[in-house]
């Protein structure tokens, strides 16, 4: 099956007063239609820059992006802003962490939703209103007709997130980018929103990319997971394989350091000492070498490439856990 | 020295302002004719003429001497009023921002009411009420200057005070203030050791920008006739000489250049300090 989104060797550099910051160092990722992929990483991993770059949200003269982004076979990385709008919002949609800043505080919800429906899909005002109510019902927002008249600040965090999701799926996109969609929400609301996203995916046949730092979130809602560290993908596997057949020591260390609500109090929590590698430096070694419990000299002298272990599982390590 | 490794703008601004301060404090020692005495033999001579390096105006007043005197007045008013205004404004603003309640209500009301008046109108009114009406009588020049300084200070207090108050409210909400309380620090100590040192940098930076504005304001007031004795400050020099721009253009341009350079130097410092503060307070 041909890929919906094919990213090849995406690299993003920033010019800063400290030097050139290599935020993303050559990332490739393919996403099939209807697939759910999680991109997991901590701060400094480059996951946010990577997702923003893919969404075309990085602008400015100090940003240098190279690489190829193909959507349904069309190269979109070099489109100008007018052409980009053909894709973003209609074929590819995005939702972000803080719905408060994504929604216009001085316009009513209904007006904001109708606006994009009228402009993008050429609907009339009443058609747009009906569709808006339809969408709000789809995202299980209570009393949708009343919600249309409200302003963003009158809704709770969970409800605002639902409105944002409703606006995102308005044009029946083929793919949804969710950038830390539940980080700012309470855990019970987070569960509701994740279930909603899973249901919508099934109903609309959307592909989904979830960018998060929370391995717990992706464990239950993704088909594949890409783990990012130091601007690179260090492991890419199906969700089951990532947890049961972990190959990259960083992934293993990450999983071990997460406290679990279903495990009894044990001994010390396993932590990863040290700090992420300096993004302004070129890398001649493995980025995780300084913090890896299994590191040997080769890890400090050479930079590992991604190795394909078969079954869609690739990792970036000379000495993977469980052998090659 | 302090100037090492600083950008060019910093060095130039420091140089110009140092020159101004030097002129203001020691310029009277130079062997020049008095700033308001006229040389009947050299009316309206151009720059670099014999005996008058910056030329004279139509009354024969030596421009260099006038400018040096003007430095003292213009810079003096700016520095004194900004310093007083910042001090008093900071005091009131920090009190209002930290204690809130009725103290804040009263102080904020004072701020807002004063700021509601158009600045220039308010200054004109204050000068008219409190200063002597005759600017030409030497005996009453000083009171005019004093009134002007205090009037400008009066207008600056709410402006800087509101800034200080907003900054205080913002800093007081930070967790380290809670930490200070949890350590048993008294309110006064918290204000002096934690709030004020953090509010001060942004206040100082705005004060520099304000100083530049005051110099221009003083010029405007002079043109409106509410300044000090004509020719005593840069602004009043400009006001008096601009009518003769076709005859003695240098007498207009010299004060203009001086005002422009000084304002630019002040602005530069203000911006420089502000970006320094922003860099420290923001994180990547």
């Amino acid at each position: 099956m041909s890929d919906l989104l094919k990213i090849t060797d995406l690299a993003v550099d920033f010019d800063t007063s400290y030097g050139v910051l290599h935020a993303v160092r050559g990332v490739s990722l393919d996403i099939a239609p209807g697939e759910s992929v999680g991109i997991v990483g901590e701060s400094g991993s480059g996951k946010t820059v990577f997702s923003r770059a893919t969404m075309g949200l990085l602008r400015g003269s100090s940003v240098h992006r190279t690489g190829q982004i193909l959507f349904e076979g069309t190269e979109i990385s070099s489109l100008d802003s007018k052409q980009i709008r053909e894709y973003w919002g209609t074929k590819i949609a995005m939702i972000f962490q803080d719905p408060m800043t994504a929604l216009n505080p001085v316009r009513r919800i209904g007006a904001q939703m109708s606006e994009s429906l009228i402009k993008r899909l050429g609907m009339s005002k009443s058609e747009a209103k009906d569709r808006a109510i339809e969408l709000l019902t789809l995202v299980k927002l209570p009393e949708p007709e009343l919600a249309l008249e409200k302003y963003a600040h009158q809704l709770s965090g969970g409800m605002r997130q639902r409105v944002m999701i409703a606006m995102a799926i308005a044009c029946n996109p083929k793919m949804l980018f969710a950038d830390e969609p539940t980080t700012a929400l309470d855990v019970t609301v987070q569960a509701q929103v994740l279930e909603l996203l899973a249901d919508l995916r099934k109903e609309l046949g959307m592909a989904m990319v979830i960018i998060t730092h929370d391995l717990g979130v992706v464990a239950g809602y993704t088909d594949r997971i890409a783990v990012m560290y130091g601007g690179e993908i260090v492991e890419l596997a199906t969700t089951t394989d990532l947890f049961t057949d972990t190959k990259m020591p960083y992934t293993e260390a990450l999983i071990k350091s997460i406290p679990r609500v279903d495990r009894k109090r044990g001994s010390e929590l396993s932590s990863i000492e040290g700090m992420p590698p300096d993004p302004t430096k070129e890398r001649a070694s493995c980025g995780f070498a300084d913090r890896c419990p299994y590191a040997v000299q080769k890890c400090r002298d050479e930079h590992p490439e991604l190795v394909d272990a078969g079954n869609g599982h690739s990792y970036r390590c000379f000495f993977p856990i469980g052998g090659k | 020295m302090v100037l090492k490794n600083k950008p060019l703008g910093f060095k130039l601004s420091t140089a110009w302002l140092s020159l101004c301060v030097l002129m203001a404090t020691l310029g009277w020692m130079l062997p020049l004719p008095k700033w308001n005495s006229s040389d009947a033999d050299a009316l309206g001579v151009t720059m670099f003429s014999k005996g008058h390096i910056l030329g004279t105006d139509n009354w024969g007043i030596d421009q260099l001497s006038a400018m040096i005197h003007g430095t003292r007045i213009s810079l003096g008013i700016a520095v004194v009023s900004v310093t007083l205004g910042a001090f008093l404004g900071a005091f009131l603003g920090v009190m209002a921002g930290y204690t809130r309640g009725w103290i804040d209500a009263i102080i904020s009301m004072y701020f807002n009411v004063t700021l509601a008046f158009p600045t220039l109108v308010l200054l004109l009114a204050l000068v008219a009420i409190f200063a002597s009406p005759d600017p030409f009588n030497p005996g009453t020049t000083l009171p005019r200057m004093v009134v002007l300084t205090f009037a400008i200070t009066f207008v600056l207090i709410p402006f800087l005070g509101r800034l200080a108050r907003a900054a205080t409210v913002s800093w007081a909400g930070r967790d380290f203030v809670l930490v200070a309380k949890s350590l048993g620090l008294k309110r006064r100590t918290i204000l002096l050791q934690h709030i004020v040192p953090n509010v001060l940098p942004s206040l100082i930076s705005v004060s520099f920008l304000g100083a530049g504005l005051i110099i221009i304001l003083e010029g405007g007031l002079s043109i409106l006739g509410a300044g000090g004795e004509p020719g005593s400050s840069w602004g009043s020099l400009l006001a008096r000489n601009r009518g003769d721009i076709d005859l003695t253009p240098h007498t207009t341009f010299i004060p203009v250049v001086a005002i422009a350079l000084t304002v630019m130097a002040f602005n530069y410092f203000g911006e420089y300090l502000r970006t320094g503060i922003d860099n420290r307070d923001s994180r990547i």
Partner: protein
Amino acid sequence: MAGTGKAHLRDSPAPILRVENLVIEYKSGRNDPVQAVSNISLELHDGETLAIIGESGCGKSTLGKGILKLVDVTSGSVVFNGVDINTLDKEALRQVRPNFQMIFQDSISSLDPHLTVGRIVRQPLDIWNRGEESERDAKVDELLVSVGLDPERVKNRKPHEFSGGQCQRISIARALTLEPKVLICDEPVSSLDVSIQAQILNILQEMKVRYGLSLIFISHDLAVVRAISTRILVMYLGKVCEIADPDTLCDSPRHHYTHALVSSVPVPDPTVHRHSAILQGEPPSPTNPPSGCRFRTRCAAATELCATEEPQLRETTPGNYVACHHPRD
């Protein structure tokens, strides 16, 4: 106003901190005052880590600050070493403060940006005049080392030069300077990366043992709390729902809210199936809480009794209490 009761308070062994019927109200515009903390009682025993867990708006942060009287307390008592802190005058309260310290979620905002780290950590000693100059410096070094920082590289720098995790270590060092009895941690690891979280939690455990601390750990993260606490208290909209030991609370929660909370926590394991007890609706507004049991509007087991009578804390298994008319089995 009735609370969920004090059935869970015991007199022996004597707790080092006992909070009874604490009410914290704050004004909300022209409306009636909001009760962020509505008649809560709890106690902290020596060497214990009591976790207070709840979602946003439940009042847990306000509770922590109220115990230290960093916010105004409307009524109730906070008894430490036999003395009710709430009744003390300003100066007496000051004197008691060194016994309690607090660390906060935003580690960077917890440090005064214009002071050096060395000065920040030394400040408590300077304020309370503990020891000679040289002794104070030595103490600062000792504390920085114990939190895993190199004093020489850290003392003369300012907070903005450090990461969130490092700032949290500095905060912990500062909090321990006066060797307090009680350390209240308000979401100390919530804004840190997972790998750093583990580092900080380990440091807290170490410090607890080394300095004989008792901790009150406020958090919304049940997984973190299960890993490090000895007792967990669940709050909802200013009230206590359940108090139990971590294993009991997480494996067999009695309160329906606790059950929903436990079910909602994402587990980093794709083979673990999630329960489907996902809460519907949103938390009601604290300005107008539901009558009787505050959780009844979202509870599948709610009956008329829940609307008329506020449930009291009752012992279920030894040492565990739940405030519910129809607790789960």
